[in-house]
């Protein structure tokens, strides 16, 4: 019985003559490219880091923090605190939150006898200074 591998008849091909040389050339090109891209990546990372540091330094130490603008001051024509040169540390606002139970207040007011105020003009002069 004749026995052979049918694939044996298939021709086998060779790599081109200068295969190793071509691969090594390609390898050197890739190495250069990798070094260049690594340098570029590091430079970019460094530049971004430097920008971040400059931003932080400017914000913390060089540019003063602007204070709050109060409407009451604006109405009176007083410029905001940061324009007056008042540092923010001098004007730190401390928020105080106090819980007030109004129900008790209302109850208490109901228990009190009702008060009637009779307002009567005592003088003929116009009540310029009197405020009710």
């Amino acid at each position: 019985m004749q026995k052979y591998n049918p694939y044996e008849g298939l021709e086998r091909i060779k790599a081109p003559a200068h295969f190793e040389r071509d691969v090594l050339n390609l390898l050197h090109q890739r190495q250069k490219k990798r070094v260049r891209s690594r340098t570029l990546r590091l430079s970019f990372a460094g530049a971004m880091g430097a920008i971040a540091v400059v931003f932080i330094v400017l914000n913390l130490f060089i540019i003063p923090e602007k204070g709050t603008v109060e409407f009451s001051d604006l109405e009176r024509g007083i410029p905001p605190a940061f324009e007056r040169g008042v540092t923010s540390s001098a004007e730190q606002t401390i928020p105080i939150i106090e819980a007030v139970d109004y129900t008790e207040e209302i109850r208490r007011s109901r228990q009190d006898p009702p008060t009637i105020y009779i307002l009567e003009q005592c003088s003929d002069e116009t009540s310029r200074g009197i405020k009710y």
Partner: protein
Amino acid sequence: MREQELMSHIQKGDEMAFEEIMRMYKDKIVNFLWRLTGNYQTAVELAQETFMRVYFKANKYRPVAPLSSWIYAIASNLAKTELKKANRVPVVSLDNEVYHYPEQRASWGNPEKLAMSKTLKKALNSLHPRYRIPVVLKDIEGFSQEEIAQILKKPLGTIKARISRGRNYLKKELEDSSFRLPFNHNKEDGHAEI
């Protein structure tokens, strides 16, 4: 052992060791890729890329498997990507093909066998890569089914099924052509025989 030593040298950036590995595998890899892609130029380019990866990914190589399995795994992955990219199953017309590649040895002297070899090649090229890759690795490159499972990162059962389906397809193709030769599979060594 020698291959492991060469790989450890490549890991240190030794280009001489890399050249040595290339000399050992270049023909096999080009041939393997040519079988898969059906185009000599593409096969050479993919082989170059395979060796590039061998060099740059040398640190990822672990000597738990033979080096050949690792190199073939890289090559088959590249071939699969290339075939997907081309989105086609290449069918090479042997009648019109210009043979500009160096052949390692002449085919069969017998014209009938030569014609059968051409038909087999045609059938191989028309086979889907899913089946072609395991069949080529098994029947042409001579890897064991376990090694192929390792190379293609598929379960052993899947590989066995794919090889069997691929061989059945080839058998049918050969039978459909003028070659009505008995085509059996040797159960013991898994090789196809006539």
